């Protein structure tokens, strides 16, 4: 991986004098080596997941013996009873909740990053709480509400809950970008007789678009990943993580690894694309 080449690079990098003037002692390898070891450790369950998705086990439960290479699990990803539906359910919930959370969170983030107003401190604190709150507290409080008000649990309650916990993350993502904006750009547009609304759509929106996209992806991943809150508000509905949690007691099929690999790859592609876009923007 590219990380292996990393330690040597900064020394040769041009520009301001590098902090790490070439030290001749072996100790300078400690931190880069440690970082690589950490990255491998963090990724180890992912390697296992990808590898065992190709395991040719003669039955449909994951097993530590590697029986041989097969693509069978990949070919029948969606055919495993129950699991396919749970996976599709997750893929239905995530985009809906991500779109709504992005729309609401973007406006919220704009207000937080852009204006000073009465109540800013209190609202900042609410966002801060929404980020720091343990999921179990959020899940159980939502369940308390749905039980008390008699709202039937299912798809809708899952989507509403997912929107609820994603908004804060979208908001801070957009806020970070808005704060970094040059306010003069919008003023300049208004000096050139653009109405505030036009100035917003022609100037501000394109500038904060990467943050909106990042917020959307974050909300999408948060929704796709969520177990704890979903477990509380799902009722009879299942999602991908819920199904896996239920199935793991008796062992789960390698199909789970395949689905995990698919989601993981999609995540990497999105993140890499985001990185490339950022690089290009910085270069401009």
């Amino acid at each position: 991986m590219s990380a292996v080449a990393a330690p040597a690079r900064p020394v040769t990098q041009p520009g301001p004098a590098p902090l790490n003037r070439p030290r001749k002692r072996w100790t300078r390898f400690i931190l880069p080596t440690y970082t690589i070891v950490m990255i491998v450790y963090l990724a180890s369950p992912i390697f296992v997941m990808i590898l065992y998705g190709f395991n040719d086990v003669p039955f449909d439960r994951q097993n530590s013996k590697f029986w041989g290479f097969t693509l069978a699990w990949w070919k029948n990803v969606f055919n495993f009873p129950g699991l396919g539906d749970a996976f599709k359910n997750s893929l239905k919930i995530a985009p809906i909740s991500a779109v709504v959370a992005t729309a609401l969170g973007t406006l919220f983030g704009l207000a937080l990053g852009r204006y000073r107003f009465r109540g800013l401190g209190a609202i900042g604190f609410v966002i801060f709480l929404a980020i720091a709150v343990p999921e179990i507290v959020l899940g159980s409080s939502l369940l308390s509400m749905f039980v008390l008000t008699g709202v039937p649990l299912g798809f809708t309650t899952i989507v509403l809950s997912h929107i609820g916990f994603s908004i804060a993350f979208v908001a801070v993502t957009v806020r970070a970008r808005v704060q970094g904006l040059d306010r003069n750009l919008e003023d300049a547009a208004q000096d050139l007789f653009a109405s505030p609304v036009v100035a917003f759509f022609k100037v501000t929106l394109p500038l904060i678009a990467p943050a909106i996209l990042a917020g959307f992806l974050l909300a999408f991943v948060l929704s796709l990943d969520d177990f704890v809150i979903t477990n509380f508000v799902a009722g009879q509905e299942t999602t991908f993580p819920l199904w896996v949690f239920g199935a793991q007691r008796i062992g789960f099929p390698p199909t789970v690894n395949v689905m995990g690999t698919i989601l993981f790859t999609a995540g990497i592609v999105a993140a890499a694309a985001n990185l490339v876009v950022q690089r290009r923007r910085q270069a401009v």
Partner: protein
Amino acid sequence: MSDAGAEVAEGTVTPTPPDRRRSLGVRRRLVPYYLLSPAGLFLLLFFLVPLGLMLYTSLQSGGLLSGGFRFTWAFNNYTDVLGQYQTQFVRSLVYSIIVTVAALLLAYPMTYWIAFYAGKWKSSLLLLILVPFFVSFVIRTVQWKFILGDTGPILGPLKDIGLLPQGFRILATPFAVVAGITYNFLPFTALPLYVALERIDKRLVEAAKDLYSSRWEAFRRVVWPLSLPGVFAAFLLTFVPATGDYVNASLLGGPGTTMIGNIIQEKFLTELDYPEAAALSVILMLVMLVLATVYARILGTEDVQRAAGANA
């Protein structure tokens, strides 16, 4: 911030009659509230109101089979659960403290090196750290259960060649649970640390060196103090959710590692004993609220918001 100043200056140069200008000012001042209201309403309905209703539930009494629950100011729910589940509360706090310290020790050297020395590889390396966490929490933990299993890919071969006794286990021990939580919450530690370290002006370290400080001294007296806001944000973002975690304890732990989260979810979802479950959850929430308020009072909410928004 200069925003407010800019607003005022703009208002005074606009050649509009005074009354119209005022109404424009009022409208302008309302803009942030318009922007806030949709999401604000949503957060009110699906974050603040539920918390209040959970408080309400926790003071109910009765049973599902004996005619449902009624609100009776049943404060005894709190004393009951505190007495009954003291062990799990203490265990959750102890685990969570160990997790937080371990995660800080693991993440600090790594994020420090990336922020200070990784040059143009910075964002790629950070991405490599965060990439495993694109995979669902449950899936990652299930994989650890598999890796650390009694006959899994690590213990199996070691037992076969006789390096470990057949009965040796990692699963179902406190170590497995603590290690699992540490792994799963590492990004919550690493990201705030990285954001804080990255913001430190690297010239300060140069200056310290110019003034004949050793590298260790430059770290101890310049970098470390300046990174403390990140350490505190990491503490809050790791400690609070780790205390409430029950997924690691149910997947990697055993009967002797039950955490308070396990009790809450069991009471809510299996026993359907809503009042006691809510009481437990409220206690957890209060612990969190106290920590978060003290944190916000002393350090403000800026660091946490910035760390959470750092993915952009």
